[in-house]
């Protein structure tokens, strides 16, 4: 997968800054994040709770609550299959609606909350088609040249008397045709996620399904329009391990078959190592290390990445001797110009508290934001040889 031709990236995030206004000041949830997602790759975004990984993911679909959120700077450029590029943060609402769910789709963490409990599975999946594929739907139903009310019904944009009109015998027949064409499309989408008996599933409500099945419905919904980019925000955290493995297999199968690029947001390092081509490690609103997964996990360069990997319980670590990272994540309210990890870093020097490191390449595509790998503007340089704390 790494050998694939490196054509233009499907999306680029450039110095993205998302703040949240709190009573005590501005929380710098995402503070200058830059990365690109290449065509067809899976980019893993890992980090602990509150590091800004979900906010970054949601920025792609502009699902951030503004206010209290503040888009303080930067841009997210998306280049669809049609070659047109858009800045997702400044696009008009109508245009972002056209992209959302069609060109960029999202799978959320908790399928129990992300699916509407008052709608059947069929209704929810068909919304995607009605919003983005109404033309194709009308063609399949043989109603391409049907009259206004049916056209509008297929776009979910009925006018005030359309409801009455659609009850008239002639329209009713058209509507039934439309519905059966729609059901066929929904069944196809569900069948792609290997659910048993999709025709039966259509009339079920989300609460009647198991967690794994709900997540499959959400994947069907997300991949219904063959998006160019899929944002998967911890899609398997709520699931059991045996089901999680099946869902991961499914996502990667569908991804390979359709050439979708995936931004995989997760806190689970062992998972990201297995499924992602490249990995970005986030800490306190910044990317501290980014590179090919193989390099990051074989040779982690940032003290935080090293700490995270060492904290995973293994057979080899003596009981009670896990390498925990001291302290906790700093408050992100108006943070000072310094390395965010300096307070917890065993190698930190005065330079780390006075200057802000930037991502710089160490080997090839492997970049790290740490003074250990390049000299700070002034002060002593930290190194892995000396431990301060």
């Amino acid at each position: 997968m790494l050998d694939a031709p490196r054509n233009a990236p499907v999306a680029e995030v450039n110095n993205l800054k998302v703040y949240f206004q709190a009573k005590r000041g501005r929380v710098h949830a995402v503070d200058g994040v830059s990365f690109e997602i290449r065509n067809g790759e899976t980019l893993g975004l890992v980090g602990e709770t509150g590091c800004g990984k979900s906010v970054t993911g949601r920025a792609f679909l502009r699902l951030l609550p503004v206010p209290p959120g503040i888009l303080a700077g930067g841009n997210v450029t998306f280049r669809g299959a049609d070659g047109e590029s858009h800045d997702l943060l400044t696009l008009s609402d109508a245009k972002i609606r056209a992209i959302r769910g069609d060109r960029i789709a999202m799978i959320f963490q908790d399928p129990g909350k992300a699916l509407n409990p008052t709608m059947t599975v069929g209704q929810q999946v068909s919304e995607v088609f009605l919003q983005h594929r109404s033309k194709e739907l009308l063609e399949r139903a043989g109603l391409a040249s049907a009259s206004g009310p049916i056209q509008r019904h297929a776009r979910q944009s009925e006018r005030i008397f359309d409801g009455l009109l659609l009850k008239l015998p002639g329209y009713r027949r058209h509507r039934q045709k439309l519905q059966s064409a729609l059901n066929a499309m929904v069944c196809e989408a569900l069948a792609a996620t290997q659910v048993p008996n999709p025709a039966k599933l259509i009339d079920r409500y989300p609460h009647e399904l198991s967690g794994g099945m709900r997540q499959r419905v959400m994947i069907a919904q997300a991949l219904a329009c063959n998006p160019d980019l899929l944002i998967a925000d911890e899609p398997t955290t709520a699931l059991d391990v045996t089901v999680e493995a099946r869902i991961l297999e499914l996502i990667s199968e569908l991804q390979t078959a359709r050439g979708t690029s995936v931004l995989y947001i997760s806190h689970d390092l062992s998972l990201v190592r297995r499924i992602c081509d490249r990995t970005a490690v986030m800490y306190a609103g910044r990317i501290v290390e980014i590179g090919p997964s193989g390099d990051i996990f074989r040779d982690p360069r940032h003290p935080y990445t090293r700490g995270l990997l060492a904290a995973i319980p293994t057979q080899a670590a003596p009981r009670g001797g896990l390498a925990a990272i001291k302290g906790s994540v700093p408050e992100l309210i108006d943070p000072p110009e310094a390395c965010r990890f300096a307070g917890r870093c065993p190698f930190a020097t005065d330079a780390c508290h006075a200057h802000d490191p930037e991502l710089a390449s160490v080997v090839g595509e492997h970049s790290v934001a740490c003074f250990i790998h390049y000299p700070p503007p002034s002060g002593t340089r930290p190194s892995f040889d000396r431990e301060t704390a």
Partner: protein
Amino acid sequence: MSLAADPAPATPLLRVRELTKHYPIREGIFQRVAGHVRAVDGVSFDIMRGETLGLVGESGCGKTTLGRCVAGLQSVTAGSVEFGDTGNIDTLDPVQYRAFRRNCQMVFQDSFASLNPRHLVIDLVGRPLRVYREASGDALTERVVELLEQVGMGRQHLYRYPHQFSGGQRQRISIARALALNPELIVLDEPTSALDVSVQAQILNLLSDLQRDRSLAYLFITHDLSVVRHMADRLVVMYLGRISEQGPTETVFDNPQHPYTRALMDAKPDIEADPDVPIRGLEGTVPDPARPPRGCRFHTRCPVVTPNCGWEIDDVARWLDDTGDVLAGLSGVERRSDFNGRFTFETDAEAARLEDALRSEATPPPMRAALDRLERQGASVDIVFREVGEVPLTQRGPRHEAACVLDPTLIQDRP
């Protein structure tokens, strides 16, 4: 370590024998009992002093219910929990019961829900001391400070509310509260699954240190195999309310004897494992615990299932429900037993379709092999499966047991 074989085993701290917990399902306006959810169904194990017993399984396998039964937070339907040299905890007199409750504490998964948001830390951690009249006034404050220091917190945290702490700190408060009365056993119900890895490592280190200093015994309930491998001396793997495998942790990890244990391990490999080995999941979902499958409860999802695993009438519905509309036109099912039943259809053709499906490749070969009789008479189909009892735990090695028919002594005609 408890792994060392000793000829005359010491009396265990906790003995659980054939523990069963069924929850009634009530229906209708009179709340008639319509069935039972068999959350825990005949589980036996021991916990020695100073030992960590890991309890793993998927959600809904009954591991939390089992933990609550052991801690006395839930009455049991049948079976017994014996603590120390007292008898069954359900029949203790009030004085002995108080002593048991002191000696067995619990730490819950969700520290938000298990710490009263309107109480200060000093009230939360000091409450057990007050209830058991251990301390009051200044002495109580000092005891609480001492406990907080043991879990890596301090005097400055005494007068704060739970919401002012991070998840890791709240879990430390829960642990301090559990330690207050110097218990011998702590039931840890997923103590780290809501925490980040770096904080999880801090809590696991803390738990290990406390165990060493105080020779505590832990019942460590989790779904995370890497955590349990790190923490536990012995392991119990549960599936649908029953133990499918138990043994010393390393033995179970090195040589898993139950296909379910193996599936769990394949689905969640270690960070150290080779990243190129693909992860493998399991098909299907956990069956309804109100009607657990007969024979081996795992047979509906087992990748190496045999005809002897307990195929039953319900499996016909389970399999064929997912494959098209074979069961369309079904008008009734008459169940003579779990293994013997008659499916009646509206027309002969529909019955013939079921018969054909059961004889075809659509049905898994072990299920076809387990069919003793398959006869169609007009619109009804008689199905009789081989009768199989519960699969018992059998010895697989020193102190290593698994409940699987795949064993040369138990299985005669493996296909």
